[in-house]
C-alpha cells in the first residue's frame, strides 16, 4: 500500500452526506422541453448544427466542437428543435447564453449506437470520439476530456482518478461509484490506453467506505489502486488530491501533466466508457438533489432539464426554502432562475433555507488572526490578498500569488470577521484580466498604428521612386544614356526597408502561433468571457490564446 501525503490546511465542515446517499440513483422522467446550452465546457462553445424546425434523434449531435478546446453537445431526447437562442444557463454570472431548445416527442428514438473498439482504433480516433460525444470533466471544471487525455509530448507516470467528492452535501460520485464501479473501471481502462501511465491511483475520501469497497472489487486484477484519503476539504481539489496521492505539487501556472500526472473525475471515466464502448454521448448525468427538499436523493437527469423540475424529482422544496445552490456549499453558486437547465457541470442542487444556511453576519475589519492562512490549501496568505484586493493594489496581490488561489473558500469559511474573502479575490482576478485585456488592446493599437505609419512611409517612398523612375525615363528618352545612380540607391534602400518590415511581421506571427501547450481560460468559478482575449489580434493568433498569468488551471473543482 502506498503511503499518503498531506496537503496544507483545509477545513472539515459538517458533511451532510447521509441525507442523500442512502437511496440508489433514480432515473428521471422525460421532461416536455429540454434546453441544451452550447457552452457546457471550458473553451470555445459548440457550434449549432441544427436549426429551428429540425427533427432530432436522441443522442444526435446538435452542436459540434468548434476549435481544439471544445466539445460537442447532443440532443438528450428525440424531438423538434424549437429555438436556438439565448437562455438562462447555470453559470455564476447569471448571464444568458446560446442554447438549443428541443420539444420532446416522447418517443425517445435513439441514433444508431456505434461502439468503438478503442484498442483497434488509433488513439486520435478515440480522442475524436470523446470530443464528438461531448465528454468533458464532470468534476466541475468541465474541461474537454479529449484535450486532457492528449498530453502532447509529456510522459504521464500517474493517472489519478478523483472520487474524493469533498464538498459537503454532494453524493453523486459516491452513488455512481457504489452502483456502477465496473463501468467506471472500463472507462479508466480506455483512459490508460490513451495516456499509458505507469500507475493508476483512485482517490476516494474515507467517508465513503461503500464506494471504496465497490471500486476495490471492480479494480481487482486491473492493477489500479483504490486509496481511501482523509476526509478534509478540499481534498478533492485536483492539486490537493495529487499532492495527497503522489506527494508532488503541480507547478504554479502549470498543469498536472508537467509533473507527469493526469487527473480525471470518476464520473468522467463513466462517460468515457459509455461514449466509447456503447456509442452513447453525454446526454445525462447524476445529480444530487438535497437540502430542504422532501426526499433527498440522486437522480440520473437528462442534460437540459429545467432545474425546477429536477427539484420536483426529490418531492419538491419544503417550506422555508429561500433559494437554491448549484454545486456544493463551499464552491457552488446561487441559482436565480428555476428555468435554468441542468448542464454537464451541475452535480448538485441544494434547496437552501435559513435554517440550513444561516445568513452571513456583516463583515468586520480583518484582525489578522491568520486562521485563513492556517487553512489555505495553497499556503497563500489570504489576509494579504484581501488587503491588496480591497485597496485595488493588484500588482501586490499578484505578487502574493493571487492566481494560485483555487477559490476553495476555506479562508472565508473560517474568517471570524466574516469577510467574503473569495469574492475579493474574484474581483481582483477579473480586474487584472480586464487590465490585461486593455493593455493588450493598447499594444495592438500601437502595432497597428506603427504599421500604418510604416506603410504610409513606404507608399510615399514608392511614389517618390516611381516619380524618379518616370523622371529618369523621361530623361533617358530625352537623350541622356545611363541610369541615375542616386535613384537606384534610393530604390534599393526602399526595397530593403520593405523586406525588413515583412520579416518582422512574419516573426511576430510565428511567435504568436506555434504553442502546443494550451492553458485553458478559466475554472468553472470564473466567467470564461471575463478571461477570454479581446477580438483577434492582427497577428493571427489562435482562437484561444493562453492568457499566461491571467488564466487558471484546468482544476477539477473540488
Amino acid at each position: 500500500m502506498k503511503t499518503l501525503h498531506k496537503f496544507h490546511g483545509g477545513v472539515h465542515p459538517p458533511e451532510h452526506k447521509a441525507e442523500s446517499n442512502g437511496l440508489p440513483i433514480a432515473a428521471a422522467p422525460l421532461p416536455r422541453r429540454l434546453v441544451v446550452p452550447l457552452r457546457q465546457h471550458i473553451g470555445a462553445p459548440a457550434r449549432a448544427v441544427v436549426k429551428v424546425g429540425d427533427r432530432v434523434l436522441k443522442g444526435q449531435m446538435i452542436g459540434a466542437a468548434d476549435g481544439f478546446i471544445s466539445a460537442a453537445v447532443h440532443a438528450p431526447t428525440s424531438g423538434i428543435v424549437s429555438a436556438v437562442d439565448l437562455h438562462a444557463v447555470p453559470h455564476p454570472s447569471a448571464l444568458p447564453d446560446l442554447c438549443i431548445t428541443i420539444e420532446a416527442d416522447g418517443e425517445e428514438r435513439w441514433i444508431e449506437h456505434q461502439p468503438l473498439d478503442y484498442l483497434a482504433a488509433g488513439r486520435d480516433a478515440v480522442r475524436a470520439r470523446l470530443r464528438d460525444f461531448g465528454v468533458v470533466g464532470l468534476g466541475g471544471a468541465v474541461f474537454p476530456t479529449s484535450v486532457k487525455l492528449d498530453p502532447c509530448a509529456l510522459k504521464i507516470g500517474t493517472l489519478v482518478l478523483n472520487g474524493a467528492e469533498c464538498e459537503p452535501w454532494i453524493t453523486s460520485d459516491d452513488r455512481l461509484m457504489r452502483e456502477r464501479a465496473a463501468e467506471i473501471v472500463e472507462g479508466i481502462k480506455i483512459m490508460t490506453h490513451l495516456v499509458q501511465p505507469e500507475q493508476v491511483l483512485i482517490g476516494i475520501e474515507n467517508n465513503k467506505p461503500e464506494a471504496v469497497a465497490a471500486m476495490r472489487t471492480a479494480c481487482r486484477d486491473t492493477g489500479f489502486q483504490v486509496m481511501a484519503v482523509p476526509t478534509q476539504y478540499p481534498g478533492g481539489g485536483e492539486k490537493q488530491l495529487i499532492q495527497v496521492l503522489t506527494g508532488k505539487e503541480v507547478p504554479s501556472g502549470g498543469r498536472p501533466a508537467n509533473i507527469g500526472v493526469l487527473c480525471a473525475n470518476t464520473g468522467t471515466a463513466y462517460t468515457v466508457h459509455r461514449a466509447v464502448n456503447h456509442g452513447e454521448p453525454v446526454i445525462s448525468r447524476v445529480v444530487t438533489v438535497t437540502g430542504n427538499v422532501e426526499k433527498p436523493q440522486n437522480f440520473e437527469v437528462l442534460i437540459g432539464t429545467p432545474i425546477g423540475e429536477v427539484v420536483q424529482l426529490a418531492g419538491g422544496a419544503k417550506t422555508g426554502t429561500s433559494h437554491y445552490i448549484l454545486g456544493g456549499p463551499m464552491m457552488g453558486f446561487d441559482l436565480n432562475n428555476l428555468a435554468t437547465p441542468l448542464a454537464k457541470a451541475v452535480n448538485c442542487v441544494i434547496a437552501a433555507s435559513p435554517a440550513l444556511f444561516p445568513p452571513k453576519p456583516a463583515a468586520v475589519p480583518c484582525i489578522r488572526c491568520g486562521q485563513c492562512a492556517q487553512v489555505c490549501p495553497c499556503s497563500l496568505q489570504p489576509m494579504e490578498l484581501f488587503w491588496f484586493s480591497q485597496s485595488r493594489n493588484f500588482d501586490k496581490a499578484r505578487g502574493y500569488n493571487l492566481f494560485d488561489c483555487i477559490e476553495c473558500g476555506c479562508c472565508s469559511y473560517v474568517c471570524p470577521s466574516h469577510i467574503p474573502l473569495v469574492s475579493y479575490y474574484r474581483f481582483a482576478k477579473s480586474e487584472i484580466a480586464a487590465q490585461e485585456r486593455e493593455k493588450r488592446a493598447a499594444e495592438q493599437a500601437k502595432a497597428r498604428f506603427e504599421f500604418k505609419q510604416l506603410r504610409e512611409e513606404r507608399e510615399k517612398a514608392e511614389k517618390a521612386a516611381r516619380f524618379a523612375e518616370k523622371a529618369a525615363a523621361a530623361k533617358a528618352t530625352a537623350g541622356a544614356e545611363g541610369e541615375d545612380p542616386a535613384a537606384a540607391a534610393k530604390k534599393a534602400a526602399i526595397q530593403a526597408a520593405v523586406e525588413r518590415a515583412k520579416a518582422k511581421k512574419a516573426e511576430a506571427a510565428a511567435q504568436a502561433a506555434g504553442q502546443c501547450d494550451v492553458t485553458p481560460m478559466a475554472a468553472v468559478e470564473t466567467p470564461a468571457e471575463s478571461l477570454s482575449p479581446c477580438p483577434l489580434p492582427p497577428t493571427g493568433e489562435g482562437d484561444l490564446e493562453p492568457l499566461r498569468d491571467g488564466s487558471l488551471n484546468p482544476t477539477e473543482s473540488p
Partner: protein
Amino acid sequence: MSSPHVLTPGSSVSRIMLTVLAALLPAIAAYVYFFGPAILISLTLASITALAAEAAVLRLRDFPVKYFLFDGSALLTAWLLALSIPPLAPWWLIVVGTAFAIVVAKHLYGGLGNNLFNPAMAGFAVLMISFPSFMTHWPTPLTLAQHTVGLGDALQVYFSGGLPGARLDAVTMATPLDTLKTQLSLQHTMDEVKRMPIFGTFGGKGTETVATMYLLGGLFLLRKRIITWHTPVSFLVALIAISAFFNSVDASRYATPLFHLFTGGALLGAFFIATDYVTAPVTPRGKLIFGAGVGVLEYLIRVFGGYPDGIAFSVLIMNAAVPLIDAYTQPRVYGHNTGATP
C-alpha cells in the same frame, strides 16, 4: 450571495476576544487573592474608559457604534493594560493610559485591525515615561503587609490619593524584579537577595502564582486554537536561553531562567501580549522570529536597562518590525519552487 455559503458556526471576532478575556480570569482571581481587591478597581476603571473612548471615536469616525463597541477588542486592551500597571494608583493614571491606548494607539492608526503598535503596551509606555514614580509602587502581598487594604481603602487610594491611617508606602513596594536589580546594584549577592521575604519559591511571592495562572490561561488559548504555539514557545525559549546563558556565566549576579519566567510580565507577555493578532506577524516563521525577539529584548531591558521590566518596550520595538518580518517570512506557496516547471 457568493460561495462559500457556509461559515464556521459561532466563529466571530467578539467570541475570540471574549475567550481571551475569559482566559485572563484565573490570573485575576489569583491577583485578588494575593494582593487584594484593588486590581478590580483598576480593571473597572480601564474598562469604562476604554468603552467610552471607543464609543466616542467610533462616533467621530461615523462607524456603527453599537456594532463595534462590544466586539471585545477595547475591553481586552483595557484589561491587558490594567494588569500591566500597578493597582493602588490615582484613578487618572489608568484612565490616561487606557484613553491613549484606544484613541491614539488604536484609532489614530486606523482602528481595529490596522494599528501598528500594541495599544495596551503603547498605553503602558506612555505612563512609564510620563509618570514613572507611580509605575514602580506595587501592592505588597497581603501576607507581608502590615495593613490589609480592603475595597474601601483601595477606593480611597484611587480617588483621594492617600490611605487614612497608613502611608501608601506601607502597602506598596517595588516588584521582585526591581528589588533584585536594586539589591544587586548594592553589591548584594543573589543568595542574599533571594532570602528577602518578597521572593517566593521560584519568582516573587504571589506574582509567581499569578504568572502560573497566565500560563494556564495561555494553554487554554492554545487548546482553543485562538493562538498558535509559535510565539509563546519562541518567546519563552529565547528568554530561557539568554537567562540560562548569563546565569551560567555568573549565577551570583544573574537570576535563573525559572525566576525570569515567573516574574514580571514574561508569561502575560508570552501568551497574551506578543500573541496579539493585529500587531504581531501572521506567518509561522515570522511568529518565531517575533517571539524570540521579544524574549531577548525583554531580558536585556529588565536586566541591563533602566526599567524594572521590559515587556512593553520589547513588544513595541518588535511591533515596528512586523511588516518587515511578515514580508520576509512568506511561506512557500503550493506549486512554487518545487523544481518542476510549467
